[in-house]
C-alpha cells in the first residue's frame, strides 16, 4: 500500500510552494519571473539546477555555473521523462520537467543529483509550473498595458503642456494624474476608489459642473451632483454617453436643448456636455466618462476633450489591472488548491493528509500536558452523531471487540469503559468527556472488489463510485476532520479529537454503513463494499507509524473476509507478515 513513499511526504512541499508563489508573483516582468522561477524551483526541490524553457529556448537557467548550459540535453529532457543530464562537477542528475500550461508551450525544469524525485515533489513542481504559466500570461498582459500606459502618459504630457500655456494648471494636473496612477498601481486599492478619483479629477481639472463615470453595468461614479440627482443618474442617465459608447469616439454637444435627455441631472439645466468612451485594450467599450456644464456660455474645447480621453484611458487601465490582479489571485489560489487536493474527488491528497496528521499528533502531544476546552466540545459532538446514526450493527461491533481482546487487554478494557461513558452521555451534554482525553485516530479505507466494478461497469462508473464514496465520507465526519484520497481506491480519515478508540470504531461503523449503501451510477446499480482499518495514536507516534497500524488493521479486515471494520491490535503486524 502506501507505506513505501510515506517518508518523503511532509509539510515541506506545501511550504515550498507557498514560497515559490510569493517570489514569482512579485516579479516585475517576464524575465524576472522566469529567473525567479528557475531559482525558486531549484531551492524548493533542494536541487542543483532550475530552468525555464519557452518555445524551445532556455529562457533562464541556474546551476551550471560558468559552464555552457546544455540546452539540447535540457530540451530532450522535456520530451523524455526518463532523461538525465550531466551537471559538470556534480554528476548525472535526474530531471523533472513540468509543462507550463495551455497558453504557453514550455517547461519548468529542475535537475538533482543523487536523490530521485518523490511523487509529492512531482505534484509540487507541476503546481509551480502551472503558477509560472499563469504568472507569465498575466505579466505579458500587464506589459502590453504598460505600453498603453506610456502612450497615455505621453498624451497626458501633451495635454499638460497645452494646459500650462492656457491655464497655468500644470502642477495640479501632473499631481492629479500621478495620484491616479499610484492608486492604479496599488493593488490593494479597491477599483471603486480609483474610479471615484478619476471622476473627481475630471470634474476639477476641466472645471465643469458635473462628471459621471460609468463602467460596466453596475459601476457609476459621480461628481458635482446632489444625492437625489446622483441616484437618478445612476438608474437612468443621458443619451450622450451611450452615443459615445456606440460610436467609440468622443461626442460633444455644446448646445444642449433645455428639457432634453439631461433632465435627471437637476437644476440649473445642463447646457453643454462631452462624453468619451472607456475602451478596454483600446477596442472593447465598457463604459463612458461624461462631463457637463450648467453654465450657458461654457463650450467644451478640443483640449478638454483630450483631457477627458486621457482620464477615460486611465479608467480602462484601472479596470484591466483589477481584472488581471483578480485573475492572478484566483489562479494562485486554484493552483494551491490543486496542489493539495485530489482532482477527481476534491478530497485532500496524501501530502495534505500527512501534514494534517502531523499537526494533529503534535497538538495532541501538547494537549496532553495542557488540556484545552475545545477538545471537550468536539468529543461531545461526536457522541451525538454516533447516537443519532442509524442502527449500529451489533455483530460487527462484537467482531471488532474480539480483535481488541487479542491485543493489550488492560488498555482496551479501559478504553471500553470510557467508550460506554461516551454513549451514555448524549443526554448530559458537555459534562462527560474527561478533560484532555481527546485522541487522534486514523481510519484507513479500501473499497472491496473495486477492480471488478471497474471491469464490469467501466471506468466511468468506477470513477463515479470514488466520487460518491468521497462525498459519503465527507458528509459523515465533523468539521475539522480530514478525509483524503490516498490513491486508487484507498481513502483515509483523520479524526482529530475523539474520546477514545471505541468511539473511533463507532464512527468507522457509521461511515461503513454510509459508504456501502447501494448507489445508482450512470444508470447502473452498484452495491459497494469496503474494509476499514482503525488505529488510535499513542504517545511518540509519527504519521507513518499511525497510518501503518491503520493499514495493518485494514489488512486484518480484508483477511477476515472484507466488508467490515477492524481495530488495530498488537500482533496484527506479525499475522500480516
Amino acid at each position, binding site marked *: 500500500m502506501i507505506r513505501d513513499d510515506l517518508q518523503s511526504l511532509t509539510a515541506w512541499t506545501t511550504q515550498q510552494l507557498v514560497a515559490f508563489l510569493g517570489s514569482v508573483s512579485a516579479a516585475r516582468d517576464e524575465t524576472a519571473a522566469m529567473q525567479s522561477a528557475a*531559482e525558486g524551483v531549484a531551492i524548493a526541490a533542494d536541487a542543483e*539546477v532550475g530552468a525555464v524553457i519557452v518555445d524551445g529556448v532556455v529562457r533562464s537557467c541556474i546551476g551550471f555555473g560558468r559552464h555552457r548550459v546544455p540546452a539540447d540535453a535540457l530540451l530532450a529532457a522535456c520530451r523524455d521523462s526518463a532523461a538525465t543530464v550531466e551537471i559538470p562537477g556534480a554528476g548525472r542528475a535526474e530531471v523533472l520537467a513540468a509543462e507550463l500550461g495551455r497558453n504557453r508551450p514550455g517547461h519548468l525544469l529542475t535537475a538533482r543529483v543523487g536523490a530521485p524525485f518523490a511523487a509529492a515533489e512531482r505534484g509540487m513542481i507541476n503546481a509551480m509550473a502551472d503558477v509560472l504559466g499563469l504568472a507569465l500570461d498575466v505579466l505579458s498582459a500587464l506589459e502590453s498595458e504598460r505600453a498603453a500606459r506610456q502612450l497615455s502618459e505621453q498624451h497626458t504630457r501633451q495635454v499638460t503642456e497645452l494646459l500650462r500655456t492656457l491655464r497655468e494648471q500644470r502642477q495640479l494636473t501632473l499631481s492629479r494624474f500621478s495620484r491616479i496612477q499610484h492608486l492604479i498601481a496599488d493593488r490593494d486599492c479597491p477599483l471603486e476608489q480609483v474610479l471615484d478619483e478619476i471622476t473627481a479629477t475630471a470634474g476639477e481639472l476641466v472645471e465643469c459642473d458635473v462628471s459621471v463615470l460609468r463602467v460596466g453595468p453596475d459601476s457609476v461614479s459621480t461628481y458635482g451632483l446632489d444625492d437625489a440627482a446622483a441616484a437618478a443618474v445612476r438608474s437612468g442617465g443621458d443619451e450622450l454617453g451611450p452615443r459615445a459608447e456606440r460610436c467609440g469616439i468622443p461626442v460633444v454637444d455644446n448646445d444642449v436643448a433645455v428639457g432634453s435627455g439631461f433632465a435627471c441631472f437637476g437644476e440649473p439645466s445642463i447646457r453643454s456636455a462631452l462624453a468619451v468612451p472607456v475602451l478596454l485594450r483600446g477596442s472593447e467599450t465598457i463604459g463612458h466618462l461624461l462631463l457637463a456644464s450648467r453654465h450657458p456660455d461654457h463650450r467644451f474645447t478640443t483640449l478638454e476633450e483630450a483631457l477627458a480621453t486621457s482620464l477615460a484611458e486611465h479608467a480602462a487601465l484601472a479596470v484591466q489591472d483589477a481584472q488581471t490582479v483578480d485573475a492572478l489571485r484566483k489562479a494562485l489560489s486554484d493552483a494551491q488548491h490543486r496542489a493539495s487536493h485530489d482532482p477527481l474527488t476534491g478530497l485532500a491528497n496524501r501530502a495534505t493528509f500527512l501534514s494534517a496528521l502531523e499537526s494533529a499528533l503534535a497538538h495532541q502531544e501538547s494537549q496532553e500536558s495542557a488540556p484545552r476546552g475545545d477538545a471537550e466540545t468536539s468529543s461531545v459532538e461526536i457522541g451525538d452523531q454516533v447516537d443519532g446514526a442509524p442502527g449500529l450493527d451489533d455483530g460487527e461491533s462484537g467482531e471488532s471487540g474480539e480483535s481488541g481482546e487479542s491485543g493489550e487487554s488492560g488498555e482496551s478494557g479501559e478504553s471500553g469503559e470510557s467508550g460506554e461513558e461516551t454513549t451514555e452521555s448524549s443526554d448530559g451534554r458537555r459534562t462527560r468527556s474527561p478533560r484532555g482525553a481527546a485522541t487522534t485516530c486514523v481510519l484507513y479505507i479500501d473499497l472491496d472488489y473495486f477492480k471488478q466494478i471497474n471491469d464490469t461497469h467501466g471506468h466511468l462508473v468506477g470513477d463515479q463510485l470514488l466520487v460518491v464514496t468521497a462525498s459519503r465520507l465527507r458528509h459523515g465526519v465533523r468539521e475539522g476532520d480530514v478525509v483524503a484520497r490516498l490513491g486508487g481506491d484507498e481513502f483515509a480519515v483523520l479524526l482529530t479529537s475523539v474520546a477514545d478508540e471505541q468511539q473511533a470504531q463507532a464512527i468507522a461503523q457509521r461511515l461503513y454503513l454510509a459508504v456501502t449503501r447501494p448507489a445508482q451510477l450512470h444508470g447502473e446499480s452498484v452495491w459497494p463494499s469496503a474494509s476499514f482499518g482503525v488505529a488510535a495514536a499513542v504517545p511518540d507516534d509519527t504519521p507513518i507509524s499511525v497510518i501503518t497500524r491503520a493499514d495493518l488493521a485494514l489488512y486484518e479486515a480484508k483477511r477476515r473476509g472484507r466488508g467490515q471494520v477492524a481495530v488495530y491490535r498488537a500482533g496484527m503486524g506479525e499475522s500480516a507478515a
Partner: protein
Amino acid sequence: MGWDDTTRWCAAGASVLGDSAGAAEEAVRRALAQATGDTGVGADQVVLAVAFVSAAHDLADVATGLRRLLAADVPVVGCTTAGEIAEATGRDSDLAVMLFGGSGFSVRTAWATGLGEDSAGTGQRVAELLYADQDVDPGVLRDEDGGPREVVMLLSDGLAGDQQAMVTGVYRVTGAPIPLVGGCAGDDLVMSATYQLIGGAGAGPTDRVLRDSVVGVRLRSDGPIGIGVRHGWTRVGSPLVVTATEGSSVGSLDGRPALDAYLQLLDAPEQARTDPAAFTRFALNHPLGIAGRSQDLVRFVTGADFEARTLELVAPVPQGGLTWIMTGDVDSVLSASDEACRLAVEALEGRPARGVIAFDCIARRAALGEDSDEEIRRIGERVGDVPLIGFYTYGEIARTRGMGGFHNQTLVVLAVA
C-alpha cells in the same frame, strides 16, 4: 602529486594582545613558526592569510600588523567575529590567523558592498569577480573520486541583507560544481556593526575595511577539500503556521502576535518578556526551524519588537509556511559538532587534513555555555593535530548539494588536505 608533498601547507596562530597591530603580527609570527617547524617554509610562500578578529580590534590596524610580516601583494581576508576559535589556546582568542602557503594552492579574492540593498546582486558581483579570469574547467575542480578541488569561502556582514539571497547570487555564477562555505561576521553580540577586511593581489593596492559587504576567496587546491555541516537542534511542540511576515520580521504565528505565541509556548521566564537583552539571551537557545528535505533549517531569533509584538529573525521565513520552535541540549549540540567534523574529514578520503576552518554559530556557543571549550577541544580531537582556526558567526554558509546554502545555529567545518 602525492598527498605527502610539501607544495602546500597551512599554519595557524593566535594572539590575545590588546594592541591590534601587535596582536596581528604576533599571530602571523606564531603561524610562521609553526609552518617552519613543520615544513621549513616561510613568509615568501604565503598565498593567503585569513584573520578572524574580535570586534574590539580595529581591522585597519590589524591589516597594518599583518603586513609587517607579509608582502603587500599577499591576499588577506578577514572579519570581526562574535568570538574566535584557535587551537593555540584551546579557547577564545582575540585574534586568530590561518596562513595558506605553497604552490599547491592558488587563490583569488574579491569583494563587493551593497549587501543590505541588493543581497543577491552583491553575491553575484563577488562571484563574477572571482571567476572573471577564466571559465571553470570541470576537470581540474574535482579529483578522480569526485571530491572538490576548489571551494569559495565567503565572509559577509552578518547584520546586513538576506544571506540566503546572497548565496543564491553567488550560485548564479558558481553553480553546482563549486562548493561554498563561510560565515557571517559578528560584533561580539553588540549587534551594531560588523567589518570585513580584504587586501593584496586582485583586491587593489590597499587593504580595505568594509561594512555591508561580502568578501570572497576562491581557493583551489591540488588536494581534496572536505566540508561538514550539522546543527544538533530538535523540534519542540506543535508546528506553527507563519501567518504574517515582513522581510525577516515575523508578525504572527497561528494568527496570534508572534512574540506572544513564542513566549507562551516556551513558557519564557518573566525577564525575557520585558527586557530586550534578556529576551535575546533566551532566544539564543530557542531558534525557529523550517522543514527541509534532509534536515530542518534553523533560523536564529535575534530579537523582538515589544511594541509591535513581532519576532526578528536573522533571515526571512516564508509566509504561510510551517515552522517549529527548536531546542537543543549540550549533548545534541556536541554530537552535531563531532558529526560535522567527521563528515569533513571523511571527505578527504583517508588523507590527513592540512588545515581546518570552523564556522560555528554564536547561538550554539550560548547553548553550550561552559561547555563551549569542550566543543573546541572535541573539534581539535576529531580533525587531528592540524592547524585550526574558526570563529563564532552570525550565520553560516555551506553549500555542497542543492541550492540552499545559508544556515543558522550550525557548525560548518572546512578541511583542506
